[in-house]
Every structure is written in structure tokens, then in C-alpha cells.
């Protein structure tokens, strides 16, 4: 029975967080940058294929182990030298306290399960192989596996590849196991918003979101307890008359047993997850809903985005994972960390785009409101992109840049000396470890770590600040940003 008894100022807490990674090296070629560059120069494909990581390599990759919670972000600073890809973690597990890293064969199984319009035919032998593997997976049901018995012969798949825009699906680099073709009926054959490339992206997003949410439900609460789902991914689900109609959230919840939930999507570029958490906190605090889950699948387009830099440095192509996240926000349970509703920082329309203005709004003003110094926040979680991915392509160390900007404000406000800036970054920041999956990397990868530390009494607070590049849509020159503070739950004190 759901308890809707009145509690006027319900404190919203983060009860659980999950992170999922699908290791999909054979999909790298379909990422936005690789597909465009290979289209112009097909000779790029062989070196791309020869620089793909194996599943074991992806599991042992230290930042991926941090992402699923088997390591702490500061382990990358103190205990594991760079380059991280040359220092794999021995005996590493695909399972972690926050979720798992899944091989592409099994992930294709979930994509097939998500395929309700028969647009993803797969080879019958391959489907049988993965059905056997998924039988052992704790989060796949009998009903799931029944959807995997409708494979077709490889010859039929090869024939369908001759159709315009059909996308081939490979494993192990170049073993053909399926294809994604146009949907049929209702004008889908002519709809430019339902081309196979877009449908593939949406299917992969749904699948990675489903697995993140299933992980969250398995360790946090009942699927039937969830009242509302807030999607916050980068996909655009729609058709020719409604290009960004959305509600991927509900599509994800459908395959997770969330029979009592409805949902909607928050669209705010990379800032969307933190916006969604703030909205979720508001829905809970105002007693509209008891349990709100923020969920997102991965960014398919960003696969292999910086592959040219990795090839130039003869590195493995590290952008070979699709990430999913799920965050459970509920009413105060006396234990879970609290979202401080009086700590919300927002980058306003009139704020201007200078870094100074953004940090002023997201960090300084909320702290002033609470009477806190910058040095009184245990950890800041900002853009947490893995620098090993971004540096070879010349994009620098994004987390470090952001932390030095925050620390500079502490210098300006005389909280620390200029010489203490590096120490501030070390203590209050962290190395980037998130896959460069856009919305995924914006602050939220640290949420699971901070919840764990606060429950263990090892951390008092953390500030989560995210930014969004609205200007990329060519509608406005504006940036965006939003922040909140998470605090240890002091119980009844």
C-alpha cells in the first residue's frame, strides 16, 4: 500500500544510484564522427578495427572500474599511474556495487528485447548463443529470453543490407550478426526522422537505460513503488511531425516492471541529469510523488568521437562504451543523503557566458546563501570526462580546468592562497573518470560514490554542478548550468 500521508516539508533523499556500461567496440564505427570520416575515407576502417579493445581490456580499464564503483576516483590520482590503459586492474570484475560492464553480445540481446517493431533482425545462431549467456544473467527474465528465439538466416540479413540506409550490426569488429532497417507502415518508409541510424540510436539508448534501471531496482526498491520516471538522455524520439516527442523514460520503465509509473523527459543538453534530479527533488518535496527515478541511456552518437586522436597516438579507441544511469529520489528515510533544496544554483538567462558568471551562479551564490565557504564543501563534482580520452585529440583535461576555475574563486575570496590552488584541486576535486558520453559525464558519475561515503560517515557534503552547451543546437548562444548540494543525513537531529 502506498503511503501518501501528509508530510508538509518532505526532505528529498537519494536512496540509490546505478551505473551501467555496455562495451560495444563493434558499434564504434557507427558513432557520429567515425561514420562520417569513414564515409569520406574508407581506408580509416582497418586501423579503427585494429585499435578496438577486448571486453577484458575494457573491464580492467581503471576509469571503468571507478565508474561501476570498484575503485574510488581518488585511486586514479594516488594509486594508479597514467596512462591508465597501460595499467589495467588485475582480476577485475565486470560487476561492481553500482552496476556492471556488459559485453556487446549480451547488450545486443537487450537491444533485441527492446525491438518492438521488428527493425533489428539478428542471425539465428547468434541469438541462440546469447540466449544461453543471458540465461545466467540475474537481470534477464524468462519473458526476455522468449524474445530471442526469432532469429533469421545470415543470408537474409546480407540481402537486407542491400536496402538503402540499413545499418549492419557486427560483433568482434567485423562478424556480421544482424542489421537495423527502416520500420514499415504508417509512412515510416518515407519519414526522415525514422531512418535506421536514428532508430539504432534510440534502441541502444533504451537498452542501456533499461539495464541501468534494472540494476537500480534490484538493489534499491520495488519497481511497483516507482511513481514517476524522468528521462534525461540525449536522444530524440519522434517522427516527422514531432521530431523530439520523447518520453524515453516511459519506454525504459515499461521493460523494468514499473507498472504504476508514468514519466517524461528533461531535455537540456548535458545539463539534463542534474536538472532532472532537481525536478525529482521538487516532486518529492512537494508530496506530488513518493518515489521518482531519474534515468538515461547512453549517447550513441559520441561513440568514437575522438578516435582520430587515439589512432594518432597508437592508443586503443577508448570511446567504446555506452553508459546508462539511474537515480532513485524519495522521501527522507533517516539514512540516505539529503538533497538540499535551499542549495540550488542556476545559471540564469541574463547571467552571461563568462566562466566567472557561471561559477558565480552555480557555486558562489548557493554557498553564500548557506553561509558556507568554498573550502567547506568536501568534494565538487563537475564535468568528469576522462582526460585520457580527451587529451590525445587536443581537448585538454576538462575536470582539471573546471576545478582550477572553482579553486580560483577560493583564491579571489581569500579563502586560500594562490599557491594552495593545486592542493585545493586535489582535496576538493578528483581526476576525471567518466566515459565521454555527454550528459553522463556531467557531475552525476560521482553521485554513487558520495552516497556510499555519506552513509558510511566518511563525507559530509558534495556539490554537483553541471553545464550545458545549448549553443550547439544553433537556436541560442546561451549556455546553461545548474547545481545542488548533497548532504549526509543526520537522522532526527
Amino acid at each position: 500500500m502506498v503511503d501518501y500521508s501528509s508530510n508538509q516539508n518532505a526532505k528529498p533523499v537519494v536512496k540509490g544510484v546505478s551505473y551501467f556500461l555496455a562495451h560495444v567496440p563493434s558499434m564504434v564505427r557507427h558513432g557520429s564522427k567515425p561514420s562520417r570520416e569513414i564515409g569520406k575515407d574508407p581506408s580509416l576502417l582497418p586501423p579503427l578495427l585494429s585499435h578496438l579493445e577486448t571486453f577484458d581490456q575494457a573491464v580492467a580499464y581503471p576509469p571503468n572500474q571507478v565508474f561501476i564503483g570498484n575503485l574510488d576516483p581518488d585511486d586514479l590520482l594516488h594509486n594508479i599511474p597514467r596512462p591508465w590503459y597501460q595499467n589495467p586492474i588485475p582480476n577485475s570484475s565486470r560487476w561492481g556495487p553500482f552496476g556492471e560492464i556488459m559485453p556487446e553480445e549480451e547488450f545486443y540481446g537487450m537491444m533485441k528485447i527492446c525491438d518492438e517493431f521488428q527493425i533489428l533482425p539478428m542471425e539465428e545462431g547468434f541469438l541462440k548463443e546469447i540466449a544461453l549467456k543471458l540465461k545466467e544473467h540475474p537481470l534477464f527474465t524468462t519473458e526476455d529470453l522468449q524474445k530471442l528465439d526469432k532469429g533469421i538466416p545470415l543470408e537474409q540479413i546480407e540481402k537486407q543490407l542491400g536496402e538503402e540506409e540499413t545499418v549492419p550490426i557486427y560483433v568482434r569488429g567485423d562478424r556480421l550478426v544482424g542489421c537495423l532497417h527502416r520500420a514499415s507502415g504508417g509512412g515510416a518508409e518515407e519519414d526522415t526522422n525514422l531512418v535506421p541510424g536514428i532508430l539504432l540510436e534510440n534502441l541502444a539508448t533504451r537498452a542501456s537505460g533499461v539495464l541501468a534501471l534494472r540494476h537500480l531496482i534490484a538493489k534499491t526498491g520495488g519497481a511497483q513503488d516507482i511513481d514517476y520516471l524522468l528521462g534525461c538522455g540525449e536522444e530524440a524520439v519522434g517522427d516527422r511531425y514531432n521530431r523530439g516527442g520523447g518520453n524515453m523514460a516511459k519506454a525504459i520503465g515499461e521493460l523494468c516492471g514499473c507498472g504504476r509509473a508514468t514519466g517524461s523527459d528533461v531535455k537540456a543538453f548535458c545539463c539534463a541529469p542534474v536538472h532532472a534530479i532537481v525536478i525529482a527533488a521538487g516532486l518529492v518535496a512537494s508530496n506530488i510523488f513518493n518515489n521518482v527515478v531519474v534515468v538515461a541511456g547512453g549517447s550513441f552518437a559520441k561513440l568514437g568521437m575522438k578516435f582520430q586522436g587515439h589512432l594518432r597516438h597508437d592508443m586503443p579507441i577508448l570511446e567504446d562504451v555506452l553508459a546508462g544511469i539511474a537515480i532513485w529520489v524519495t522521501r527522507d528515510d533517516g539514512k540516505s543523503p539529503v538533497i538540499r533544496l535551499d542549495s540550488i544554483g542556476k545559471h540564469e538567462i541574463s547571467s552571461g557566458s563568462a566562466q566567472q558568471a557561471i561559477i558565480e551562479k552555480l557555486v558562489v551564490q548557493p554557498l553564500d546563501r548557506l553561509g558556507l565557504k568554498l573550502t567547506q564543501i568536501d568534494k565538487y563534482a563537475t564535468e568528469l570526462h576522462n582526460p585520457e580520452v580527451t587529451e590525445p585529440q587536443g581537448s585538454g583535461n576538462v575536470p582539471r580546468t573546471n576545478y582550477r576555475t572553482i579553486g580560483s574563486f577560493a583564491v579571489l575570496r581569500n579563502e586560500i592562497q594562490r599557491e594552495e590552488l593545486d592542493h585545493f584541486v586535489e582535496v576538493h576535486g578528483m581526476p576525471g573518470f567518466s566515459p565521454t558520453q555527454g550528459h553522463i559525464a556531467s557531475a552525476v558519475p560521482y553521485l554513487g560514490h558520495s552516497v556510499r561515503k555519506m552513509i558510511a560517515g566518511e563525507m559530509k557534503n558534495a556539490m554537483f554542478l553541471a553545464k550545458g552547451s545549448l549553443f550547439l543546437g544553433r537556436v541560442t548562444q546561451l549556455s546553461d548550468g545548474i547545481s545542488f548540494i548533497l548532504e549526509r543525513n543526520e537522522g532526527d537531529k
Partner: protein
Amino acid sequence: MQLKGKKVIIIGERDGVQGPAIEACVRSAGAEPVLVQTQCFV
């Protein structure tokens, strides 16, 4: 470098200095921005 009277192409970076912020500086120096963009590399 004297910017006054010059035409300027501005490319900023989201996590560094964004285009409109550079534009404000350039205009105050008397130059004319002809293209202002902000790149986001992540």
C-alpha cells in the same frame, strides 16, 4: 597587437573562455567580430 579597426573571428570553448565573453572583450578593444562561435569538445 592593436585590435582597433580589425575584423575578428572568435572561437571560444565551453569549459575555457566562451565566444560571447571573448566578443565582449574584442568589441571593447574596438574590433569587429565577424564570426563568434563556442565549441564544446565533450
